[in-house]
């Protein structure tokens, strides 16, 4: 048995290179969006430094012994919960959300690191020996592990990150093999809540569909009624929660339902982003030539709306190229999850995939106007040190798992 230490055995370029390319494209776009900006013109340089830090972090994480992740999963989770509490007490408010912690000149978002901690901790819990994913107690605890950071982030409040945490939690439970009925119990309250946003009629239709589904599952009456009551309770709780939301958040949700309602308010960004992308055409207006970008019609474009810089200046070709690079990355992550040597590693990769994909889907969706405007960065591309460093750390974890996958014969 000869172990062949070729580079591709230890290091997967089809994961690393897409991430690197995306980060470089991000830097180009950030440069374009900020070079003429009176306040943000230093952001390109800051992002270059962040990229260097992120690369170092990547190699450090890549080189760690694999047991470290499982070992530190619970402490990391505990520490991140601590930080999430701390940020609510002593955090800095940026764009209506209390999500930043400052240490002297450095600031970071605890929720970025909590994402990784949640993935590690939940993966650890779900793959612990004798876990039964269809046992109501085990599901409950798994959900609680997710709900603890979710509720803290809701209080910041940060809608986008909340959604991402929910997707991560559900993806891991799903991958662990939950039954269809179990998944239904977990998901249906969410569906009913979203349906309630579209008015009473849609809400009632969704409740009827829940009853039909419960009938088809042919469970006993007690189970069925319990699930229905959970659904009803969740929607009433949400209605209450909606009322205590800050007006700007209510507006965001409402402007998603009717984007034409408020063209200069929260719908403004979405509209301007669409104009930027649509006017880019097939080949784009050229680097530094986009009117929408250079004339600063999209506020804070270098963060959540970085994709429309690419859409405007590099057109359909540039936009599709970014899509393809993401697609390569996601498919490769899905492949590697199948190569991992243990279930913990598999779930960690699935968690990372679900995290990156949900960021990608929500961010690009809002840039092209198919999802609501929620503050979420586009992985690797958006300006922001914490985000870039954490994303590269996750790539580091994935390649670490890849390096330590089942030994080949």
């Amino acid at each position, binding site marked *: 048995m000869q172990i062949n230490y070729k580079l591709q055995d230890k290091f997967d370029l089809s994961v690393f290179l897409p991430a690197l390319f995306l980060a470089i494209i991000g830097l180009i776009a950030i440069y374009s969006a900020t070079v003429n900006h009176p306040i943000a013109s230093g952001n390109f340089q800051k992002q270059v430094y962040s990229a260097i830090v992120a690369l170092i972090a990547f190699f450090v994480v890549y080189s760690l012994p694999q047991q470290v992740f499982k070992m530190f999963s619970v402490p990391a989770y505990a520490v991140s919960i601590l930080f999430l509490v701390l940020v609510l007490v002593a955090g800095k408010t940026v764009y209506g959300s209390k999500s930043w912690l400052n240490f002297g000149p450095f600031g970071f978002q605890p929720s970025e690191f909590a994402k990784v901690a949640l993935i590690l901790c939940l993966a650890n819990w779900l793959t612990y020996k*004798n*876990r*039964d*994913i*269809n046992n109501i107690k085990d599901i409950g605890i798994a959900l609680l592990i997710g709900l603890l950071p979710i509720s803290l982030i809701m209080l910041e409040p940060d809608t986008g990150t909340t959604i991402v945490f929910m997707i991560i939690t559900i993806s891991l439970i*799903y*991958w*662990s*093999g*939950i*039954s269809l009925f179990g998944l239904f119990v977990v998901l249906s309250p969410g569906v009913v809540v979203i349906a309630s946003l579209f008015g009473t009629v849609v809400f009632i239709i969704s409740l009827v569909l829940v009853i039909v589904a419960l009938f088809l599952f042919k469970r006993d009456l007690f189970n069925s009624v319990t699930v229905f009551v959970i659904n009803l309770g969740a929607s009433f709780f949400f209605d209450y929660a909606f009322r205590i939301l800050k007006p700007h958040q209510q507006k965001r949700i409402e402007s998603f339902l009717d984007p034409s309602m408020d063209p200069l308010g929260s719908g403004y960004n979405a509209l*301007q982003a*669409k*104009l*930027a*992308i*649509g*006017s*880019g*055409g*097939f080949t784009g207006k050229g680097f530094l030539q986009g*009117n*929408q970008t*250079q*004339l*600063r*019609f999209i*506020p804070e474009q270098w963060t959540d709306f970085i994709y429309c810089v690419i*859409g405007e200046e590099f*057109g*359909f070709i540039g*936009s*599709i190229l970014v*899509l393809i690079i*993401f*697609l390569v990355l*996601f*498919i490769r992550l*899905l492949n590697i*999850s*199948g190569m991992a040597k243990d*279930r913990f590693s*598999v779930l960690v990769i*699935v968690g990372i*995939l679900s995290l990156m*994909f949900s960021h990608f*889907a929500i961010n*690009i*969706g809002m840039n*092209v*106007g*198919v999802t609501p405007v929620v503050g979420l960065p586009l992985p690797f591309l958006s300006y922001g040190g914490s985000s870039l460093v954490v994303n590269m750390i996750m790539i580091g974890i994935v390649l670490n798992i890849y390096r330590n996958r089942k030994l080949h014969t």
Partner: protein
Amino acid sequence: MNDTNFGSIIRRRIIFLAIILFVSVIAFRLFNMQILEQPAYSTKADENSVKPIYQTAPRGVFFDRNYKVLVGNKPSFTLRITPAEYDNKLTPFLEAILGVPEGYINRILKQNEQMSKYIPRKVAKDVNFKVIAWYEENSSKLPGVDYVIETQRDYSFGIMGSHMFGYSKEISSGLLQQRRNEYSMGDEIGSSGIEKTYEDILRGQKGIQYVLVDSHQKTIGKYKNGEVDKTAIKGYDLVLSIDKDAQKVAEEAFKDKRGALVAIEPSTGEVLAFVSAPEFNLQDFATVTSNEIWNKLNSDKDKPMFNRATMSIYSPGSTFKMLSAIAALEEGIIDTNYRVSCGGGFQFGDRFFKCLHVHGSVNVTTAIEKSCNTFFYQLVLKIGLDKWAEYSNRFGFGKKSNIDIPEESPGILPTRKYYDKAFGVDRWPKGILVSLGIGQGELSVTPLQLAQYAALFANYGKSAKPHFLKGYIETSTGKFVEVNPKTFDIYISSKSFDVVRYAMFKVVNGAGTAGNIRLPDIQIAGKTGTAQNPHGDDHAVFIGFAPYENPKIAIAVIVENVGFGSVHAAPIARDVIKAYLQKNNTQQIKKSEYLSTLKGEEGEHFAN
């Protein structure tokens, strides 16, 4: 523990498909936006960032019939402040230089606070050139302050013409609603007189400069290097029928008087001189009209803003006697042999209608020449109200002439219907018709109508709609385009006209009431009048034309509250006629030639 389901192939495939599906949706969406709908998005994006800056075009200027400038243009400097770059500490300094009250600049900046602070605000219009010269020297110390050059009307060409030229005003919001495609807020639009009638050809085409602005409306640079910019195109210059010299004489004659004068070229209807006195200074309306000036003009008891020449209605007085004369001659009711004995008045029912003198036996010629009331009291009764009104209507009374300025009154021409309505059928007071015979009573006419009436006598019932515009000069080609309204004929025999015209000739050149204006070299024909005025002293009226043969000018003059027409109105008419005709010597007919056309005894009469 459910081993079979953990990361099963099915679950893997579902995730795989979800990813592919979502990316496909986004790719499809991008295809739609960036390829299929790209033109629509581009247009909207350009609207965002490309801002048109409009430059007002200079209005066309007014020339007189000999291409002398009547109304011109001159530069006007407008001082602007761009708040984003402006230093508020400069305010007291600027206010002192501009001579505006303290707090003036702050008030203007406050008014527009909701606009982007990168948009310049117009702070002072029509700024003195000295201020601009001072600005040019000190502009480096005045951040955020600049000026733009616009044009304004220039009225420094020696005549007023306030009522015919009219003025422009900033377009009202109501009008802007109707004409949103042509005008934008702050644009000037012709508001009265010729400026209003010919607004469409006078205003020219705005220039447009396209600039790129950012989301704060701050100008970043030119759009497409100015390739699609349009330069402003000046409006068409108007050639008016006014004769500047005659106009000047007319205006000077009306200094310190109230009244009106209209002179017309009989064969064409072209207005040669046009005065409504008192005038007002149009220069006050060239830029921003101060409230002070508005209030002063509006509270003036002489009503200087009111166009007396076309809107004020007067009794025509004795000038209306020719109307009865021509109606009676044309209808065959009388001929030149018909005589009436004037004993100083006329008894009608229980009322005695006075004549100014005892004229003895008069025929139609002498009755006009000496303005005998007795003759016409009786004549109008023979004609009857209906015929009288019909002839009045043919001469243009009781209706608008449709002259090419918007301000015009139709006057009042009483008819059977009018009196039935006023008094009831068959319940008219006696003597109504008798008063009409000498141009008093309910009949009311405008000076313009009287001028047209004079023109019809001058030219044997043929004329054209009175008008100011001879033609215009197309800016792009420099070509003169003539405008000629259709001529019309009121179809009255020249035989009847000959009689009345001759009588009018004798008013001036015989033993008539206007002998005081006789000229050695120009034969004027005319008729004096004194219009009774229920509100005060009588108005002096004169209508006339000259030269008697082949007339070139017909004129009507009314001077308010001064008494007899012969004393106060006729000399003004004479001076204007003289000013107009003397330079057109070639068109005059020599006295001897004229005399030969006359018959025996009357010819001798003239020779004196």
